[in-house]
Every structure is written in C-alpha cells, then in structure tokens.
C-alpha cells in the first residue's frame, strides 16, 4: 500500500494554476524527491500533503486514509521548513521536545527520545544552545529531529538545505538520507537542486508549471529521460535540431547539417523533424589526427576548467556548437583554444525527441 496517494490534485490562485490535476503515489519507506524550477508547484504540492494549503480539487490519502478534512495538527507527519523555523525563544532541546510535549507525552519518555535524537545528529553537547547560536547545518539537523521526535513515519522536507553553503549542503544531504533510512521513514523532499535529488533519492519527480513531467529513478531520468524538459533540467545536454535520414533496425540515422549520426535506441519518434540530445560527458574528444569512423571534426572555441572535468565548447564543421566534458587525465588540460579535434558521439547515448510544438527554447526553459 503506498504511504501517500495523491489523486487529481488541483490548486488555483486567481488565473494561475499552481497544481494541475497532479497524481502521484509515494511508496512506503521510499526516499522521493520532487524537483522543478521556481513556481512549478512542488512546494504547493508538499504543503497540500501537510494541510498547510487546501487544494481546490482532488484527494490526498495517507496510509489509506483520506486526510482532506484533517487540520494540520492532526495529520501526524513531520515537516521541515525551508527557513528552518526553529522557535527562537526555545533552545535546541526544547525545540525537539515540542512535539511530544504538546501531545501530552510523559516527560521522561520525551527526555529519552530527545537525548537519543541529539546523539544521532551529534549535537548532544549543544542541547542548551539557542537557534541563533547554532551553525546553519546544526540548525537544520535540529529542525529535522524536531519533526521526527513524536514518531511520525512520514517526513516532508521543503528545500531543507536551501539556506546552507554548497559544501555543507553536499555533506548534509547524505546524512539526511542515512537518517531517513535508519529510522525506516518515508521521505518526500522538495528541492530545486537536481544533483541533490539524484544523489539521495530512490525516485525523483520532475515538475513544471503545475504538472508532473516525469517520474523515475535518478539513473532513468539521467540516462534515458522520456521528456525533453527532463533531459535539460536533470543535468546538461546538447540539443540539435535535426532530421531523421533513415530508420534502421537498431534505431535510426540522423542527418545533422550534412554529417551523419547513428543512433541506437528503441524510442524513435514517428516524425521527421526531431531533436537529438546528448550529454556533454558522453562525447569523446580526441586529437584530430586520431580519426574514427563517424567522427565529427571540430574546432575548440572555448575551454574552462571545473576541477574534475574540462569543459570544451566545440564548433563542428556542420555548424553545431557542442559542449564536451572531458575528464582530466594528465597534468595540463589536453586541448586548447583553436585546436582541431575529433568528436565521437556514442550511438547508445543519443536521445531523440519529436520537435516540440512550443519550440526548443521554450520547451527547455528553466526560468
């Protein structure tokens, strides 16, 4: 039985449709992330589950029970806010004890739960500190403990790491997942950071303009996204406006400005004009003297170093501009501005989509 079931959820604000008939099932004990650009409805969705916002239409059930009529305080779930929202007039210990206290738990039972949680988040010596005396990361961990102290099995996180530095975020997100998994919880985690979502989720939901675009495991969404928007939103992609030259047994051959591109894929659209997408790291780049069959010749127009890879902007002879990510093997970057290089686009990693009605730029816009 799914832990949370959402059916045809709709919410309007005047003429803006924040949620447009959204349906979703969250599996028991799964770590589910919801990603999407600002305004896509992900925060509205999670607030509807919590009861903070009331949907205009649709149903929400938790553990098989319809919760539409239940006020926030009776929904028995944990919620972590983007702005953390620790009570400023209470110290860490008191904040974490709040849930059990208002529910009337015996004080020794509360005390032991709180001590245990403080240990788990490694803040046992900071129990008496007030929120403004704690670092951002410590505040967030305290907020998560507070949400779980009264024993809910469903945890909702609204951009929980948004207020933190990049480095702290990268470390804390794994702790979040560990926490959730160790306690056998179900988590719904809203974020705009797709790398964050992918690194810790069992499944990821991609939303846009009030609708769910696609749902899948991180690998599915990254390697075989079904929608063009997903291809651009989850990781980077090169897009080429091309034509199908011929269909083959394994897939098809594309005509890209005179050059041929072989594609091995089961998902070939029926139309002629398509968009071919390939991730920058799948394109291999070699010295122009080392030439392989089907290779494209190009010239490097830009390079930048990003630590783990070097990004090259390559202008191919057919006019296309491609971004290539090349892992750094030697001491110095291998190629430089103006170098002539050969690019090889692997047939297995090329995604083909029908040309979008709204046009490529609009369809992939993340603003």
């Amino acid at each position, binding site marked *: 039985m799914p832990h949370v079931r959402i059916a045809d959820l709709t919410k309007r604000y005047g003429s803006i449709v924040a949620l447009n008939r959204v349906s979703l099932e969250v599996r028991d004990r799964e770590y589910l992330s919801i990603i999407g650009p600002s305004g896509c409805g992900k925060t509205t969705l999670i607030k509807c589950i919590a009861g*903070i916002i009331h949907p205009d239409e649709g149903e929400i059930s938790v553990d098989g029970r319809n919760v539409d009529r239940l006020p926030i*305080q009776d929904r028995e779930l944990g919620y972590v806010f983007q702005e953390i*929202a620790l009570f*400023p007039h209470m110290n860490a210990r008191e904040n974490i004890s*709040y849930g059990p206290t208002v*529910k009337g738990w015996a004080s020794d039972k509360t005390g032991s739960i709180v001590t245990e949680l403080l240990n788990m988040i490694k803040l046992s010596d900071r129990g008496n500190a007030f929120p403004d005396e704690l670092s951002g990361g410590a505040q967030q961990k305290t907020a998560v403990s507070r*949400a779980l102290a*009264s024993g809910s099995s469903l945890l909702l996180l609204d951009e929980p790491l948004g207020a933190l530095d990049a480095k702290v975020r990268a470390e804390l997100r794994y702790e979040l997942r560990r926490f959730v998994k160790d306690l056998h919880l179900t988590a719904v985690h809203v974020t705009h950071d797709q790398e964050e979502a992918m690194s810790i989720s069992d499944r990821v939901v991609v939303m846009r303009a009030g609708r769910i675009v696609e749902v899948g495991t991180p690998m599915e969404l990254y390697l075989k996204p079904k929608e063009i928007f997903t291809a651009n939103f989850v990781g980077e992609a090169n897009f080429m406006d091309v034509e199908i030259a011929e269909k083959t047994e394994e897939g098809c051959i594309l005509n890209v400005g005179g050059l041929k591109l072989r594609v091995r894929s089961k998902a070939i659209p029926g139309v002629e004009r398509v968009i071919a997408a390939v991730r920058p790291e799948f394109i291999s780049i070699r010295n122009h003297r080392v030439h392989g069959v089907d290779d494209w010749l190009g010239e490097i127009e830009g390079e930048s170093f990003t630590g783990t890879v070097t990004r090259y902007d390559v202008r191919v002879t057919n006019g296309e501009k491609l971004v290539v990510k090349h892992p750094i093997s030697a001491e110095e970057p291998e190629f430089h501005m103006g170098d002539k290089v050969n690019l090889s686009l692997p047939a297995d990693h090329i995604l083909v989509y029908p040309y979008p009605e709204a046009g490529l730029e609009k369809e992939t816009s993340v603003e």
Partner: protein
Amino acid sequence: MGFLDTLSSNPNARQTVYASAFIFFTALILLPSMLGIFLKRESIGEVFTDPALMGRAQSAIVWSFTVAFLVSTLDLLAGLPLAWFIVRSGSRWVNVVDTLADIPFIIPTAALGFSSFLFWSSPGGISTLFGVEALIPPGVILVMLLHFAFSFPVIVRVIVGELLGYKETYEIAAKTLGAQPFTAVRTVTLPIIKPALVAAFLLAFGRSLSETGATLMVAGPVFENGPVFIKKAKDAGLEGPLVFVSFILIVASVLIFALIRFLGARLRLPTGRVSPFLERGLSRTRSVAARDGVTLLIFIIFVLAPSLFVSLPATYALLDGTFTEAVSGRGVWGGFWQSMLLSYGIGVVATLINIVAGLPVAIMIARNKLGKTSTTLLDMLVNVPIMVPSVALGVSLSFFWNALGSLPELWVLILSHTTITYTYFVRAMAAAVEGVSAEMEETARTLGGRPLTVFRRITLPLTKYSVFSGAVLVFTRSVDETGAAIAVSRQLKTAPVLLVDWVKGVVPVTASERALGVSFLVLTSFLSLLILRLVIRGKR
C-alpha cells in the same frame, strides 16, 4: 541642489548636521524637561512641612501609577483578542472593526472625556437604562473606564502591526508538530511577539499617566491622581506640591518604564503543562466564535459607545440654534475659535520643527551612526518625553524658560507641544528608515550617488508615507494635548484646555454649547486623520 549634494559627501558636513540636530534635542527638549523641576527644588520643602498636603500628594502619585497599571493590563487583555480578530479571522467585518478601533484614537482625549461623562454619568446616557441618574458617577471608576477607552486603540494598533509582520511559519511549524491552534499561539506566537506586547503595555501606561484634560472632566470632587493634583495646586498657587509631585512623577516614570522593559524581556510566559484535551476544545470554531463575540461586545460597550456618545447632544445642538451662534463667533464662541486657531497653529509649527529637527536624529538611530551602545542610549533618551507625564513636563518646561528670562507664553507653548510630540515622530521615522534596507542605500552610493542624492531619490520616496503619517500623528497629538498645555498656560488657552474649562463650568456655557464645542474639535481631528487614511490606502 547640486552643491548640497556634493557637500553631503563631506563627512564633516554630515556630522555637523547630525550634531546640530542632537544639540537641538538636548538643549531644547531633553534638558528643559528635566532641569526645570530641578531649579525649583527648594520649594519642595513646603510639602514636607504640611502632613495633610504630603498625604494628598503621595496618594495622588500612588493613584496615578495604580490606575495606569490596572488600565494597561485590562487593555492588553481586551486588546489582544481584538487585534487577533482583525488580523487572523478573515471575517468580512474585519475592515469595519479595524476602522472603528481607531476611533478613540482619532477623538481628542478632551472630547473623549466629555463623551464618557455623558455616556456613563449623565441622565441622557446609559444610566437611564438602569433607572438611575448616574450609573458611574465621576470618580476613580469613571477615570479608569476613560483611560481604558483611550489607550485601547494604541494597544490594538501596536499588536496588529506586530501580527502583520509576524512570520506565521512558526505557528504552522507548531501545528505540524501536533499543536492545536490555541496551543500554538500560547506557546509559540505569544512568546515571540512578547516585545511588542511589552511595548504596547508601556504606551498605554504612559498615556494613562499623562492624560490630564479628560481626567479632570471625569475625576469628580474626590479623586486625585498626579495630573489632577497638579492642576489643583497650580490653581491654588501652591508651587511646592506642584514641584514635588512633578518631580516624583518624572523620576518614578523613568524608573518604572525601565523596570517593566527589563522584567518584560525576562518574563517567560508559562509553556508548561499542556492539556491537549482542553486546548483542542479552546481551538474549536465555536469557542473561537464565542471569544470573538465577547471581545467585540467589550469593545463596543466600553470603548466605542462612550467615544461616540457625544454625537447625540451635538446633533441636537445643530438643530437648536447653537450652531448658527457658533459659526457667527458671538459670545463664548469668539474665544473658542481663537483657541482653535491657537491649537492648530501650534500644531503646524510643532510638526514642522519636529520634522526638521527630528529627521537627522531618526536617521542616526536607524542607521546606528554612533555605534551600538551609544545608539541604544540615544534611543532611550529620545523616549524620555513620552515616559514622563506631559503635565509634569509642562511644569518643568515653564519653570525652565521663565528662569532663563521671560520667553513669551506662546513660545513656551510651542516648545512644550514640540517636546511631547518629538518622540512620536523620531520613532516613526526611525522605524521607516530601518525598513529601507541599508543595502539599498549602499548600492546607490556605489553607483555614484552622493549621500544627499541617495536620501532624496531612494530613502525619502520609500519612506514618504511614514513621514506623512508621522507628521499627521504629531499634529493630532499636539492638538490633543491637555497636560502640558494646562501646566504652561497663563493667558493663552488651547482648544482642549478651553473645553475643559467649559465642561467643568469654569466658563458658563450651555449643554448644547459644550457638546458642539467638543464636536468641532472632534471633527477637525477626524478630517486630518481621514486624509491620512485616504492617502495611505490609495497608495497601497
């Protein structure tokens, strides 16, 4: 303008402006208020030699603080639910209630006093319903009812302002943790807005200590608090008791204000034993509706009705010929219109002085120009004029200026009105300037804007509503003022002071004339605040 702009880049020029404003504040506002009393300290001896007088003086002081404390507490208890209703209930009556809640604020206290008197103590008022001549005769109870009424809107405004700015996220967080709405408010919201509650309490407290005119109208023959005692002492020509009571009032007020601030910050509202069952019951819709109903009822009976009651006899006055008399300026009305002119003239001048002199000080406070500790000190000093009862302030001021060589009475009046309203303007402006992020001004400067340019083109446009409302606040408060005016006045009488005389029968007037006179005062006040409301609403 270009020259001034360039000049503003010079730190010395800027410092001169700030220093001048600070000197103005110290020399013309702070010191005269404190020193005047000090100059007459020898006359205090008079009181110590007369035990009966001493007894009266002491009792007056104690009554002042007792009434202030009781009334402020009651106002807080009754005002909080109403403020809550206005901000949170979402009821369609909210706008109506919001406007009505301001009414006692709009009505000058002198008018309020008279209206309360008519409502509670005269045969034409609520007493007829109970078959008595005066349900609550003039005396301590009536004084408390009056003070309750005129401090009520102050409390409501402050709390409404705080609640509007309050991040409801905290409450929602509490609810996600399982807290019923009532519990969430009790354990989370109230502790967080506590500073505003303390501030509201202190404002009501100060107002009660200060008010003179209306209190005189309803005090009756026996009751004496500080202001009443001072007026009687002044009328009797007894300087000693005057100085003594003023002095004690000043010192005690400052101390008690500091004490309440200190204790208020330390006070921890009990979050202890939570009874989920009881709190769930209190959160239910029916309980909330009942609470709202009671709150509104208290508001209507004890605040609204007494405030508006004067409109009844005023309406009769329109019909019985008093109105035409009034407009013609014959008889008592000649003096009345002169007093009105005086009040409004002083109001305009006081407002202008406050704007020019107060703005730099407001900026100094808002932008922490003197560093943290000194700015806090300045902030406290700026608050002194409203901590001290205005009547005591007036006494001190008149002694000071007369000792320095005779300053014309008009100027002493202007200075005293400026002094008591100074704090309002500076605080309103400081809050407004704080609302403009320093970042915005800083960015504008790095873009090439000189300090004065930035002030003119960025800060001022963004705070102009506060400047305007601060100005209107000062103006109405000045017109409203009775305490300092009574203390200072010899020949010249401002409108409210004149009306006190009319009501107490010092000047023989008819009931209609009284009612009409008071109504004129109310009307003009009402008009100025209406303009303010329209301007603010229009731009929202």
